[in-house]
């Protein structure tokens, strides 16, 4: 496990990141409010580690991920990659930085041009960035295809000729072509079958070790996040609820939401089926109209008056939690 050491410099720093989408209304399209997709999110990512981001739909995890590679322009806040603010760097510098920052999507198929052969698709970014000649690119394509476990002869095939798992391998291969430092994995295994998920997760793990990659791994499946992450950020309605090492999150969750999320997972052991389960009622509120105070108070079984009025800040040293009444060891 790659624990962040104090003297180590973070690869990526996220500072008070906000992404608001305006809601327009009326005769002259006045902005009457905002969907606060990401609302004041901060964290650091250290070289070589995997930061997992988990949460239910609408929690802002994908928007956060997309903001990290500037597929979204943040409303406020900073994303610093090796100390450089991605929002303010020049076009030219951004293009250079893009080779270090890559993203893998849930459905790689929709981002693959259906009329191009896989070999050409993979070579494309290298040639576009003028980082290689045609021959070099071809060599590199062979190399990367081998790394991700795709037979070389598949180079001449088109995207539709691949299965879901193979397409995700192509997605990974494409992200690797430019030798990035950081890869954002946005729900990379959610659309895959169980047995294929394990293949892709293992591949990502092995690649991290051999190529010294840093990952941000976004998923709603806690199992996959636990398997691959060193640290985990739990998000709810655009805000960070808890951030700690994977072991801490799973063994000593401090936020009631984390506890409930862990508890909601069905356990693949029928002998456990009669355990007492904490099921919270209600839906995730709309991010256009988040609750006042702590955003989780509407569903929190422990909510008190202060939770309805004042939003808790994210506090703690290594184990950060945003809760007025964090769960402590003795209590539970």
């Amino acid at each position, binding site marked *: 496990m790659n624990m962040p050491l104090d003297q180590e410099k973070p690869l990526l720093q996220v500072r008070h990141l906000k992404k608001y989408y305006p809601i327009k209304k009326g005769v002259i399209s006045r902005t009457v409010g905002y969907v606060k997709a990401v609302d004041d999110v901060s964290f650091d990512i250290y070289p070589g580690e995997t930061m997992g981001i988990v949460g*239910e*739909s609408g929690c802002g995890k994908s928007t956060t991920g997309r903001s990290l590679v500037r597929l979204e322009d943040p409303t406020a806040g900073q994303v610093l990659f090796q100390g450089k603010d991605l929002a303010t760097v020049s076009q030219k510098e951004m293009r250079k930085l893009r080779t270090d920052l890559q993203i893998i999507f849930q459905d790689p198929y929709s981002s693959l041009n259906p009329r191009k052969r896989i070999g050409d698709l993979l070579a494309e970014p290298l040639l576009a960035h003028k980082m290689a000649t045609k021959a070099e690119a071809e060599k590199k394509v062979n190399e990367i295809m081998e790394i991700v476990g795709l037979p070389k002869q598949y180079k001449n095939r088109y995207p539709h000729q691949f*299965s879901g*798992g*193979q397409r995700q391998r192509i997605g990974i291969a494409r992200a690797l072509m430019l030798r990035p430092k950081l890869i954002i994995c946005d729900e990379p295994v959610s659309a895959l*079958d*169980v*047995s*294929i*998920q*394990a*293949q892709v*997760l*293992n591949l990502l793990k092995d690649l991290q070790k051999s190529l010294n990659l840093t990952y941000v791994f976004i998923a*709603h*499946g*806690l*199992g*996959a996040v*636990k*398997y691959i992450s060193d640290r985990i950020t739990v998000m709810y309605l655009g805000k960070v609820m808890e951030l700690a090492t*994977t*072991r801490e999150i*799973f063994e000593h969750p401090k936020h009631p939401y984390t506890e*409930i*999320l*862990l*508890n*909601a*997972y*069905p*356990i*693949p*052991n*029928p*002998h*456990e*089926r009669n355990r007492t*389960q904490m*099921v*919270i*009622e209600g*839906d*995730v509120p709309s991010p256009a109209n988040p609750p006042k105070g702590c955003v989780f108070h509407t*569903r929190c079984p422990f909510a008190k008056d202060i939770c309805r009025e004042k939003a808790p800040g994210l506090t703690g040293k290594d184990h950060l939690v945003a809760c007025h009444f964090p769960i402590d060891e003795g209590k539970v």
Partner: protein
Amino acid sequence: MGELLKVDKIKTEFQTDKGPVTSVDEVSFDLKEGETICLVGESGCGKSVTSLSIMHLLDRNGSVTEGSIRFEDKDLAHASEAKMRKIRGNDISMIFQEPMTSLNPVLTIGDQLTEGIRLHMNYSRADARSYAIEMLKKVGIPRAEGIIDEYPHKLSGGMRQRVMIAMALSCKPKLLIADEPTTALDVTIQAQILKLMKKLREESNTAIILITHDLGVVAEMADKVAVMYAGQVVEETDVYTLFDNPKHPYTLGLMKSIPHITNPDDMRLNSIPGSVPSARNMPKGCRFYDRCPHAMKRCLAEKPELKPIEDKQAHSIRCFLYEEEEKNYEKKHAEKQHAEKEVSS
């Protein structure tokens, strides 16, 4: 508990331009009143097609070409469309994976809920409406009197799935087929829906065929389980035996490939290499052959049958590795029959 449903070696084929494609082959299982069976497997294993075959909801080019489906005293495999219409929504109902697209966007919740009630239960418009409100309350929908006049898009995914459940259970079916009912939902909502299904199952004694790929859901819900692979049942037994003593190499592989939150920290996932063979070119012998760590020569050429093995509980497996156990079962079974015969004579 009486026998409710018996699916016996059905084969479902789809007619395509390139000839017939077999999507489900030799699938058998049975179900008693009030019992829950889980069909578990990956996409393309035929679990959904099996359930659609029972309901006659296959696309126009698909049909059950072999085997039989007995529901109570009716033969569903050869039932006419008119007969099926009386059964659907009444004796057997169904909920689907995508609550977002399973409700008609231009009709109100009430419209969609009452049409089945009026059709099968002959309620008047007013009675159907008050009964529908009662059903919505039963599945935990707040403000049911108001929600009934809303359109589906006003509801969240979890609420829509509750509406689907209310709709499916309103005519008091004997069998509910739930096709991945929680897959599209968030995990806290999934927990709500599973809890609701358990509660309603207890109240109504409805038998359930639950289709899922999630072994966690299986462990929560099932009485018995049929593991499916490439259009066939490869292992069938009760839920405790399946998790305590899984036998088929595919079941074993599946269990070890799931990243679960209760796994130890440094456990490496055991991935099953390769992918599911396509329905167009199924292997002649065992369909798991090229992904199986125990594959033998005969697996390539010979087709294993789903056979009961000697175990504490009823347990059937489609694999040559367990021939010994199969023989033991046969021997014991024959002895038992013999003994019974002697007693009766």
